[in-house]
């Protein structure tokens, strides 16, 4: 009728299927490359309380720091850079900055700094970057990637000085930051603590929330049928159902109902109960990695449920989704992934990103 009103933003979903025991399986890489995670939710069918193993893994999740009004250059000063950023395992994401409006800064554990800047800041800063994917007509946003592990970026070098000077004097960017560091056991947080002590900050524990659901209709899943071609539901239907469970959406409707016609995809089973456990915060991939490993062990003992699921949501305002791949907002900014783990160590992995983002790896 009016085609311009029937368009909609693009969406991309990547589905993979493999086995955890498969040597070439890339599940570890996918988890560790999704740097900024906001929420993890575990869904275990036919389970009432969180198994002890899982609960202790969740307890050991890293705390994170929320620092207020931290100048960005502080994070790239010589000592801090050498002691923390370049050592790896350091995550930082600017907080209360919106990827489609403000300057957003992220530090990746790989020793890279990502600056997603509006045009004014970009021009004043004078660092080399590339136009964002989310531009329209004229470039209004640029992404600057600085790799501090690069040889030409050695501390004291010309290029390093340029970055430092730019952020210290030309454009003294300051914002709230979420920081987290994967501690390897040895106490090397001296530099981090030293920095934090100069600003107002708080240490936050990830928040947990547990919920037991009763009598849930659920689609029957066959590990071999990822695409849903052999009669089970397709990935979108499955994710929709998982979302409905997460948000307590009723699915006892019929096609003629006025309010909603949503039904659980066929063929379906009914589970007597299910556990929904969520953790929110600034969660680092290493923790999720260990959680996933623990989940794999869940089926070591015989269980009623043939599968369980792990969903990880990224920060919508993160400048990257996986690795250094640009992420933006447009109208929703989703970037999440979901594992469905089966008894035989097979898994499905669903990965989704925002409208103009690149395809997940």
């Amino acid at each position, binding site marked *: 009728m009016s085609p311009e009103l029937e368009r909609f933003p693009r969406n991309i979903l990547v589905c993979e299927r493999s086995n955890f025991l498969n040597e070439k399986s890339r599940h570890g890489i996918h988890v560790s490359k999704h740097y900024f995670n906001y929420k993890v939710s575990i869904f275990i069918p036919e389970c009432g309380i969180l198994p002890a193993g899982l609960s202790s893994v969740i307890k050991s999740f890293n705390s994170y720091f929320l620092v207020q009004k931290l100048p960005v250059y502080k994070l790239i000063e010589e000592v801090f850079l050498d002691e923390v950023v370049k050592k790896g395992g350091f995550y930082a994401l600017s907080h209360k900055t919106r990827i*489609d409006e403000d300057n957003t800064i992220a530090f990746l554990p790989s020793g890279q700094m990502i600056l997603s800047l509006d045009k004014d800041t970009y021009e004043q800063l004078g660092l080399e970057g590339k136009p964002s994917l989310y531009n329209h007509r004229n470039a209004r946003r640029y992404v600057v990637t600085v790799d501090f592990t690069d040889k030409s970026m050695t501390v004291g070098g010309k290029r390093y000085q340029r970055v430092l000077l730019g952020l210290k004097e030309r454009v003294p960017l300051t914002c709230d930051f979420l920081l987290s560091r994967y501690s390897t056991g040895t106490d090397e947080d001296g530099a981090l603590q030293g920095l934090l002590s100069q600003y107002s900050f708080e240490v936050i524990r990830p928040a947990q929330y547990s919920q037991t659901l009763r009598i849930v209709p659920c689609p029957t899943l066959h590990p071999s049928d990822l695409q849903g071609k052999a009669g089970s539901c397709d990935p979108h239907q499955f994710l929709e159902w998982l979302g409905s469970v997460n948000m307590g959406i009723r699915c006892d409707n019929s096609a003629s109902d006025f309010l909603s016609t949503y039904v659980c995809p066929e063929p379906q089973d009914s589970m007597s109960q299910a556990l929904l456990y969520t953790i929110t915060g600034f969660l680092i991939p290493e923790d999720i990695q260990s959680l996933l490993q623990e989940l794999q062990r869940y089926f070591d003992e015989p269980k009623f449920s043939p599968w369980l699921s792990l969903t990880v949501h990224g920060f919508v305002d993160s400048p990257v989704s996986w690795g250094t791949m640009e992420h933006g907002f447009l109208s929703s900014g989703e970037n999440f992934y979901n594992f469905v783990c089966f008894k035989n160590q097979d898994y499905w992995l669903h990965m989704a990103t925002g409208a103009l983002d690149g395809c997940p790896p």
Partner: protein
Amino acid sequence: MSVFMDLNISYTTDRKRLQAMIETAAHLGYSTVAINYTVEFQQKKQEIPRPKSVTELFEKLPIVQGKSSPIKVVNRLTVVTADAAHFRPTAEYKSFDLVAVYPKTEKLFHTACMTFDVDIICIATTEKQPFHFKRSPVNGAIERGVFFEICYTPAIRDSTMRKYTIANALCLMEICKGKNVILSSAAEKVLELRGPYDIANLGLVFGLSEGDAKAAVSTNCRSVLLHGETRTTAFGIIHTVKKVQPTTKQTDEAEAPASKKTKTENI
């Protein structure tokens, strides 16, 4: 992309209501709003209101939703006019950060596009545009960096006005191809304000493309503010470089002598 702005919040003497509107705008995620004072010339004698200083309104400006910075409030004057003589850029105009004109006739629309020293030209939303948009004035305005404004509040209030708003907007888009358009509320009540993403989507109904629609509530508004700044700083010849701090109010006042010199050139 830049922050979201709503460059038209109707001024009201009801201080509480005005405060509530600005608070709601901040809550909805607008980082900058303009309080709009409208003057309509019935007689020759015109009286231009003095804009209220923002500090009078708020001791502490509300924080924008999801951010740590407070909302920025600027003042704007809209001159509704059917006669070129009514638009006289006097010193009083200079006390506003933004100046808009709402031309009622085709001739005036042409002059407004081509010569008037304004930042915004309003498009009729409460009545059928009494003339057709022509390419040359519209292109002239685009070249001069003047923006066209479409307000959405009338479309919320009333079905007839909604038809006019959509029709006039579609007419404009046929000519300007989505360039130099801003969408703003012209809200008089809290419940007439809508969120920036909602408005970006509404822009599609007004004939804008997805990118243009989002620009119409963000980037383009920023250009309008910059245009307004160059107007007060003598056509941008004199430009004071400010550190990015929300204390623009004082610097603007300090610049007043510089702009006075060029006042005569406006005519």
